[in-house]
């Protein structure tokens, strides 16, 4: 029988949650790297026992870890992230220019095609690549050197490259998202990049339709349709059908279209999930009700999913890395909260139950579907 392994990064360590295909009885292991912030833990799609973790703290900075046995044991890997050439400057909160300075790794994206290749999205925003399984890292400087860098600025969480999406049909094409610069696309394996933000409208920046400067929170894609992307922006839920050349707003009947996570059903490319959050000044659910919204029409028409979720006095947040989808026949949906809960829906969102309730604040959730 198939099983699932959920990889959870929290403010105080990593946890591995495992269950069989029913997803009812869970085994919890961890904390791994207790006391450290685990921004992201992710497995290789080629060898699911190959896991990578981004571990950091204010005391000791960035650490990188790798497991080759599904998370039972871990080995420290290279943690040296040095920008290529002269780092240049970006815009600071007060409008002045400030030099690029490495702070942490937000996102890890193991290659779909090469076991030892992995991409890392970092703060201050840049993309790094390792081709030796994490033993060394090199920047892909074409992104930061695109020319618009001086107009990029940090969002509230920092100026981070938090999303990397690979085209499963074309290894040279990838998408990234940066807060607050926007979305970018490469078609030459990361050598050069194009901003893809046409159609985004951000009232909180001087030019609401600027080429860059948008606070994109997350991008998701279904494997079968690499030209179709869904985006949770700071405000607004968006989609593109032409690989980012233009975007349209699909917020429709959502009660609020601020939020962080967005993901796509494993088997239904037009079924999309978001967790609306009240506002950018109030990072908790509207009316104290934790609700996932699902669209089966690729956006605009959304239904609220509440069965098993707290519907009163709930004031947690769901951060951008904290939703994942498994690929079992009955698609499982997972998300973690800043209150330390990780919820699972084994029936595509119809009903939910907590796997764990009392972890540290959850930063990231990934799931692996295992044979």
């Amino acid at each position, binding site marked *: 029988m198939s099983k699932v392994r959920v990889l959870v990064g929290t*403010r105080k360590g990593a946890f591995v949650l495992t269950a069989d295909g029913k997803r009812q009885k869970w085994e919890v292991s961890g904390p791994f790297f207790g006391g450290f912030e685990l921004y992201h833990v992710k497995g290789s799609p080629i060898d699911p026992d190959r896991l990578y973790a981004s571990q950091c703290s204010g*005391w*000791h900075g*960035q*650490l990188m870890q790798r497991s080759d046995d599904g998370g039972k044991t871990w080995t420290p890997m290279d*943690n*040296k992230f040095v920008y290529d050439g002269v780092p240049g400057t970006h815009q600071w909160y007060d409008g002045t220019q400030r030099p690029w300075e490495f702070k942490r790794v937000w996102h890890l994206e193991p290659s779909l095609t090469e076991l030892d290749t992995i991409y890392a999205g970092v703060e201050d925003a840049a993309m790094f690549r390792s081709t030796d399984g994490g033993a060394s890292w090199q920047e892909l400087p074409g992104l930061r050197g695109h020319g618009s860098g001086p107009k990029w600025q940090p969002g509230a969480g920092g100026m981070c490259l938090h999303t990397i999406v690979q085209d499963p049909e074309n290894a040279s094409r990838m998408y990234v998202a940066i807060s607050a610069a926007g979305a970018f696309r490469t078609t030459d394996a990361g050598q050069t990049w194009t901003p893809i933000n046409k159609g985004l409208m951000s009232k909180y920046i001087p030019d609401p339709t600027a080429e860059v400067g948008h606070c994109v929170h997350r991008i998701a894609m279904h494997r079968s349709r690499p030209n179709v992307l869904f985006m949770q922006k700071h405000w607004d839920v968006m989609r593109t059908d032409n690989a980012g050349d233009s975007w349209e707003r699909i917020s429709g009947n959502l009660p609020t279209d601020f939020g962080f996570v967005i993901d796509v059903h494993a088997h239904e490319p037009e079924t999309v999930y978001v967790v609306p959050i009240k506002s950018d000044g109030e990072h908790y659910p509207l009316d104290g009700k934790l609700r996932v919204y699902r669209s089966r029409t690729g956006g605009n028409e959304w239904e609220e999913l509440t069965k098993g979720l707290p519907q009163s006095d709930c004031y947690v947040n769901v951060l951008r890395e904290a939703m994942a989808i498994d690929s079992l026949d009955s698609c499982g949906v997972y998300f973690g909260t800043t209150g330390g809960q990780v919820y699972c829906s084994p029936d595509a969102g119809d009903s939910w139950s907590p796997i764990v309730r009392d972890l540290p604040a959850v930063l990231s959730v990934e799931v692996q579907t295992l044979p």
Partner: protein
Amino acid sequence: MIRVLLPAHLRNLAGTGNEVQLTLEGPATLRAVLDVLESTYPMLRGTIRDHVTQERRPFLRFFACSEDISHDSADAPLPEAVVSGKEPLLIIGAIAGGCR
């Protein structure tokens, strides 16, 4: 032989006990100790001082013989009691943070 006491997280990372013992060749300075420490335990690179600038990470301090030597030159001689192994060199994590 120089004795170095590491903070708990770094002991876990390096897989050591409370104390590591290092043998130096040449003048016993803070820089020399950290060079040997990082050479012996490569996983500690970047966790005590910056990879590139070699500056001390802000939330760490160095103590020798009950004195804070964090702001001394990294090339200054260490106290004789540390060089002889009578006293350890302490690497201490600041009692700071707690906002998360």
